[in-house]
């Protein structure tokens, strides 16, 4: 028996809002830039001299201060982030980049700016549709972010520098893709919770500081020949879900999460980025075409199709669609989404959740019943 485990190295990264590796990189003179949405391109925040940190809010127990400002009817991810920001948890970071992607993140930007103003706080004006005009617009937006980074942090934001950054990012993506591919096997050596730990950890730390560990893990996974037994293969869909603990509950109940079509999961985050001499344009085109978030107005059917294709590719028995409470884009879309997937014969369970897991028992019961309803 040779069952792989995730090294503590990755788990420890997730314990803190800002981990030791970030501090180390900053001591070496690099600047840490926080971001909160997939529309902020990682390669652009990985130009030489800066690195991206996808903001998580581990350890938040309540959000009383954030509720005073954001109100209690805003998504709990944004409230949790603001709560930690008001406790100065992110003060060591050098800047923030937001995308005007949804109402909640926009208001997080406003409140953060008012309450604990970051020295660098940039907003990307994200179009709500694809097409040539939108691509041109977003290219200009990404260029102006590049220029702002160059001005504030002295980085080289030239197309050549960005192309180099994309190349390095692709190297990271290719390792993650290799690991993700293993999840298609009958008996995958990596569980969903393990994979989410890797993804969350590697977006919460400087990539160059996790690459060796990732490669070593990939080698060990290739040699492992035994996965965890499971009752059903599950595709996780929906909004932001950066907590491996949530997936762990699903897996403890017997559902193996084989892929995540979420903003923080494997699809579409691991798609390679074309390497060419128009990197800004490429990032814009890819963001508009690939990151299929319900805030994009014209692509409901594309999102349904993407889930159906992933169900086939990963041989999922069913879909768990989890949406963050108060998120209007996912919330409103989930009704017709459930109908479409059912129409296509895919068993689906819709769950609403808070950012911090609160009722594990209830989640287990729902998953249990779902697996049983699929005859598993």
């Amino acid at each position, binding site marked *: 028996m040779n069952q792989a485990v995730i090294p503590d190295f990755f788990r420890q990264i997730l314990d803190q809002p800002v981990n030791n590796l970030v501090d180390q990189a900053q001591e070496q003179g690099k600047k840490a830039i926080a971001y909160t949405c997939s529309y902020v391109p990682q390669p652009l925040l990985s130009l030489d001299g800066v690195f991206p940190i996808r903001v998580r809010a581990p350890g938040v127990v309540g959000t009383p201060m954030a509720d*005073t*400002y*954001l*109100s209690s*009817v*805003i998504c709990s991810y944004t409230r949790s982030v603001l709560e930690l920001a008001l406790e100065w948890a992110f003060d060591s970071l050098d800047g923030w980049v937001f995308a*005007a992607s*949804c*109402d*909640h993140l*926009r*208001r997080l*930007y*406003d*409140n953060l700016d*008012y309450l604990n103003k970051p020295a660098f706080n940039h*907003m990307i*004006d*994200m*179009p*709500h*549709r694809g097409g040539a*005009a*939108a691509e041109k*617009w977003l290219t*200009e937006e990404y260029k102006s972010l590049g220029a702002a980074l160059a001005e504030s942090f002295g980085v080289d934001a030239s197309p050549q520098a960005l192309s180099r950054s994309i190349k390095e990012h692709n190297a990271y993506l290719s390792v993650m893709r290799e690991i993700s591919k293993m999840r298609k096997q009958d008996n995958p050596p990596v569980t969903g919770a393990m994979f989410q730990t890797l993804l969350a950890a590697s977006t919460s730390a400087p990539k160059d500081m996790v690459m060796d560990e990732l490669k070593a893990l990939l080698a060990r996974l290739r040699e492992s020949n035994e996965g965890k037994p499971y009752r059903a293969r599950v595709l996780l869909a929906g909004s932001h879900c950066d907590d491996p603990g949530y997936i762990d509950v699903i897996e403890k109940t017997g559902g193996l999460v084989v892929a995540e079509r979420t903003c923080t999961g494997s699809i579409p985050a691991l798609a390679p980025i074309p390497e060419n001499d128009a990197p800004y344009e490429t990032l814009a085109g890819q963001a508009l075409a690939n990151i299929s978030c*319900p*805030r994009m*107005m*014209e692509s*409901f059917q594309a999102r349904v199709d993407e889930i159906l294709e992933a169900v086939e590719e990963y041989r999922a028995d069913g879909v768990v669609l989890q*949406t963050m*409470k*108060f*998120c*209007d*884009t996912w*919330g*409103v*879309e*989930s*009704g*017709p989404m*459930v*109908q479409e997937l059912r129409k296509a014969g895919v068993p689906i369970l*819709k769950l*609403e959740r808070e950012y911090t897991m609160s009722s594990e028992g209830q989640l287990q019961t729902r998953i249990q019943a779902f697996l049983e309803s699929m005859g598993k």
Partner: protein
Amino acid sequence: MRLQDLKKADASWKDKAVHARYRVESIGSLARLLRHGPGKMAEIFRWDWLRTLAGASNLLDMAVYTRTGRYREASAYALAEVIGGIGDLIDSICAAPDRVVIHEDLVPSEIFRGMGLAPFMAEVIGIAVPLVKADWAEKYIDIAENEGTPPDTCSLPKCTMGVALDGQFPKSAAIVTSNMPCDGGMASYTILERELKSPCFRLDIPYNFYNDRAIDYFVSELKRMIAWLEEHTPGRMDWDRLKEVCIERNKAMEHELEIWELIRQKPAPMAGEAIWLAQLIHMVATPGSPRATRTMKNILKRTKKIMENGGGALPEERYRAVLWNPPTLVFPELFVWAEQQYGVALLADMLTYHRHPFIDVSSPDSMLRSLAQIIVEGPMARHTRGPAENFFDDLFYLYEYFSLDMIWMAGHIGCKNTMALNGMFRERCREREIPLFIMNYDLSDTRVVSPVDMKKQAEAFMETVMKAEPLL
């Protein structure tokens, strides 16, 4: 709380005649739908919302019941025109059923008219019907929730979705929507498109719009929309016709700006529904219509008359207020009551206050550019999009401009992105020593906060913060 809780004004025979006259006019503006014949009537009167709207003269009662003299006449006139404006919308979709374009509230419907299409603003149902019957939307909110829409989504798009799911929309050649005013409103069109089974076009409006680049982008969106409509509907762009619509809008705008200038005076010679409700229907739902111009012109005339006679609209104006955020649809009597109880004159609301420029009608391009600017800087859009400053700056400007005594913030629970501004706003008001009343309520659902509770909140604010003595 409805009419029975308001104090009836001591009406003279003249006041009574005013009431009777506008009641007849209101009934007449809906009765004219009969001209479309019994078949059409049977078809449209299947819609519960239309049957409820047929009782819209309730709304008129509210405006006249508590008021006397010229202010009563002006309010009654404004309300009758509001009912007439809604009648026009329904009349036009009956007259040209193959040309109906269902559209979201923040798209330039002037263009549809320029193309010979019959625009019908989807949200007008969820806005207008609860004004007539407070709990009307609740059935439709439940329908949307039963189909999977979360309970926390704004009740206005939820009501609109429920009406669509219940099959109560007219047949349409096309749907046109946008990414405004908020995520919930935008997302609701996924459901509308599925239920109405019409092709749907979506306009994209940038987040930051105070720059030429954003206007250029949006103008290109408008051009794309026109080409799409020509492909999918019988409508064809007639630039001369659009010019007429735009000129009409400019005229109405001129009158409206003059009204605003006049009501800066203390006491204000006009207030209440003649300001906010008239604007909501005529400038948001039916802009550029001759009725809109006529209404604004006549409200202006009446405002001047009240001024000439000395004094203000209210018998005793003690406070001046603005209502921010969407109006209290389930409790339109709020300001009639506040007028009576504390002498509060409502001078503007978020939807009234727009910075619409005049439309430059010198060329097709200049018209599109002005229309683009009207939409991106339109009421609500300007506050729900863009940075928080857009919201705050307008309010502080209005506070000064109208010499207000306080700000009433309608804290609609479903309007998440404006709820997320209240904390900051409260502190900014405190710094400026501006009394701020944040009222908890739900735009269209009395089960969340009842009108009685809304009134209690207002009473508590007026008596504890403003130290107001009730007039009655």
